[in-house]
């Protein structure tokens, strides 16, 4: 009996690439009777790039926070990179998180510090303590890694600028560098361009998806821009009234299919 169970598992593995994120029966409420979402289940395969769409307030951000183990939930199970996020020890959770990252709508840089120190902080999952607090004290490899990440987003010349002196687009690029510097396997981007003007938004989206594709990072992102979801996602999850209304490959979808989600 054990054997057959194992065989089915092995067969399942052979059929689909291993999932970086497995969500089963996820239910979350903020103490109210009506949950934000109920009984959600989906997988995200290694290296996939998935768009999560839905109207404002449908719980996209909340779902992403649950996936990263940043927010507790009432029912179901979340397995991230093979670990059940609810049962990890604090140390194990830290190790898991050192392989993940979050790029939010707001860049969330620390305003009074230099750009380079902000990027360096992306390595705090790997190294802890004063040596990682500021670029002035950081080990040479860490500084080089941070500089390389800044290079990738095209801003090496701003390394010693204060973060609050940057434009919106530059700030978001620095936030991307901070998320990428630790070579994560799994990245969450929650409306990464919502606070930018359209031109800067396009530029940041292009850059972000070029980089994550090049590095093979698994990505789940939200956007209120249907075109972005269809253009950059390989697959679309549509959240409405607390359920997944859509779970389909982008190839067969048009923006009219998604328009209903925002009605």
């Amino acid at each position: 009996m054990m054997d057959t169970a194992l065989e089915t598992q092995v067969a399942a593995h052979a059929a689909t690439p291993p999932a970086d994120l497995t969500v089963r029966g996820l239910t979350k409420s903020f103490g109210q009777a009506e949950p934000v979402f109920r009984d959600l289940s989906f997988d995200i395969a290694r290296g996939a790039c998935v768009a999560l769409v839905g109207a404002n307030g449908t719980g996209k951000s909340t779902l992403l926070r649950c996936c990263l183990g940043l927010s507790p939930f009432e029912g179901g199970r979340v397995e991230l990179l093979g670990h059940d996020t609810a049962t990890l020890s604090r140390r194990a959770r830290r190790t898991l998180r050192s392989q993940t990252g979050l790029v939010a709508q707001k860049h969330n840089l620390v305003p009074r510090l230099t750009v380079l120190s902000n990027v360096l902080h992306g390595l705090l999952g790997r190294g802890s303590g004063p040596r990682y607090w500021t670029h002035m004290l950081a080990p040479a490899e860490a500084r080089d890694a941070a500089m390389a990440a800044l290079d990738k987003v095209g801003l090496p010349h701003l390394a010693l600028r204060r973060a609050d002196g940057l434009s919106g687009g530059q700030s978001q690029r620095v936030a991307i560098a901070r998320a990428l510097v630790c070579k994560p396997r799994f990245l969450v981007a929650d409306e990464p361009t919502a606070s930018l003007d359209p031109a800067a938004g396009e530029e940041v989206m292009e850059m972000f998806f070029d980089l994550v594709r090049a590095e093979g990072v698994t990505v789940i992102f939200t956007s209120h821009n249907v075109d972005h979801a269809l253009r950059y996602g390989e697959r679309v999850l549509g959240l409405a009234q607390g359920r997944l209304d859509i779970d389909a490959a982008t190839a067969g979808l048009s923006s009219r299919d998604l328009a209903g989600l925002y009605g």
Partner: protein
Amino acid sequence: MTAGTTPARFERPSALAFLGYALGAVILVWALDGAGWSAEKIARSGPRMADFLSRAWPPATDSLARLGWKMVETLQIAIAGAALGVVLSVPVALLATRGLLVPHWVTMVTRMVLGFIRAVPDLAWALVFVVAVGLGPFAGMLAILMDTLGFCARFFADDMEAVDQGPSEALTATGARRIDIAACAVIPAAMPGFISTSLFGLEKAVRSSTILGLVGAGGIGIELKVGFDLFDYPTALTVILMIAVVVIAVEQLGALLRSRIIGTDR
């Protein structure tokens, strides 16, 4: 709808509001009575005040050098006590910040202890330290240190609780420890608040340090006491004027530094 009638100029207070006003008036009368209110004494105080001023004027200038040095000692007490207090406030504030490093009960206990430290007046701290370390400026410095700690640690913690949670969350998602998050995201963001609070702490310290001498804890306060005890009113007046000048100067300097260092982005 027809045009409304013009409202009355005064609304009739509700019964509850009326009761509130009456109670307030009763409390005020009761308090004035307890404070020994006497119109007669006020009437008689005018001539006495004029007499004091005529005997104190002009302020004494013969002991300016000695008083000046006493004022320097006062400032030393204030600066040393405030600086040590501010430095100690940072770790204590980390323990008093909800949801940052320590469990909730630790922040509650820390905040209670800080509340106690604040509740004890600076002169009482000075008396305690005079007993503990003897008469002199060291006792005064320790009193200022406690005063600054109670004030700064509390407001540093409030500043840290008020910072934007976004950067902390981004660092949490990448696996940072809480201590790293405090050092990299919370403290830098709270720094303008820390500086502003520290400058207020210094102003407060200078004000307090001028009277610590009354209980033998060093500084210029002793000269004020001796001046009055020996009916040397000109010297006492000089001391009062010196204190006023120094306190006002430090307040102005604090305001200037605050706007220079922090600018408008508090």
